[in-house]
């Protein structure tokens, strides 16, 4: 598929043409995967990052200018999201390495207090739709698909709710954790 075709598909997608949108997403997915293989090696990580990128493209679709090159727009977002993911994975890894190097004594000293009650309280204070999303995926341990089916929403909508819910939860818990420490 040429770049001009992609530009046209993107313009049609903005107008709500689902057939064009599906064709567009199917056409760009292999390109994004190829792009991601330069930075990530594991297939499951690539799949996760790919989904994040597709969601970001979906959310920002209205910012695509039909008279401009679609691929420039797409790669700008893909690159940004890939870097964002690399950063967060690197931070996570750093934290894990740090914890692994502590001996048992140090581990005991730095062991986190039990906040399970506080988490439950904070969760109960979230708006219903976010609480349900987190409850089903994290506490009831349903898969994203199962949870989405149960709530009768799309998987991407569920992920959005979870993501917003985590942010709200984090805000509520930060205060509790600060006080606890």
């Amino acid at each position: 598929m040429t770049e001009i075709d992609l530009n046209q598909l993107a313009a049609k997608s903005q107008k709500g043409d689902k057939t064009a949108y599906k064709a567009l997403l199917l056409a760009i997915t292999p390109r994004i995967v190829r792009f991601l293989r330069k930075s990530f090696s594991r297939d499951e990580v690539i799949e996760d990052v790919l989904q994040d990128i597709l969601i970001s493209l979906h959310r920002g679709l209205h910012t695509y200018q039909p008279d401009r090159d679609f691929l420039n727009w797409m790669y700008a977002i893909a690159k940004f999201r890939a870097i964002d993911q690399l950063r967060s994975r690197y931070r996570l890894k750093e934290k894990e390495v740090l914890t692994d190097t502590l001996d048992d004594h140090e581990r005991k000293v730095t062991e986190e207090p039990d906040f399970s009650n506080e988490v439950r309280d904070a969760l109960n204070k979230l708006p219903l739709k976010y609480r349900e999303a987190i409850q089903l995926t994290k506490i009831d341990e349903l898969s994203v698909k199962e949870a989405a089916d149960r709530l009768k929403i799309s998987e991407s909508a569920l992920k959005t709710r979870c993501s917003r819910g985590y942010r709200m939860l984090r805000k509520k818990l930060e205060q509790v954790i600060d006080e606890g420490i």
Partner: protein
Amino acid sequence: MRESKFIDDIVNDLQPRKAVQAPNKIFFIWTVTNFLFVFGAMYYSGSMRPGWIEDLVDKPQYLLELLLGVGISTLAGYFLFHHAIPGDKEAEEKRRFLPVLLLAVLTLSLTISLFSGTQDTSGHFRMNCIYQMLVFSIPPLLVLLYHLKRSAPLNLYYVGFLAGLAAIAPFATAMHIACSLDPKHILIWHLSPVLVVALATAAVTQFWMRWWK
């Protein structure tokens, strides 16, 4: 398989969307409207400094300072609207010049304010100039933040800084017409709020505008 299902879900979620305005068009509309608002607000909120029109003709330094102020405001708006949407190659290429340019312009403005020997420092301090600047810059700032919220900026600190700058710099420039030309007064009450507002907006934007998560 999972990927295909995911794509189907996204496709089903598609709604018709109105594309954001082209950056050049919205930049033009913003610049004209904002400068009209700035001078309207300044005109109706108090008297202008007597003799400012003569100063434009007689003092090249004064004219230069005003042009610098207008330049900073305009450039901030230009880069802001171009960076509010991803993948603008033209703006990306020019972007590396922006920090240098802004730094140069700000340094020059500060130097002029601090070491000016030609300006009249005798008076016409506009009452509450800093409060006027801060209050008047709120509506344009809200408009810019709304635009950013609708757009998909990638570098939030950067566009936030530009939004703050584009909102308040025109008022700092207008205060050059309305208020005293005392260098210390300009530095403390006209220029430093510009930096404070720009930096504060950069910080706020980082938390409010994460559209991609």
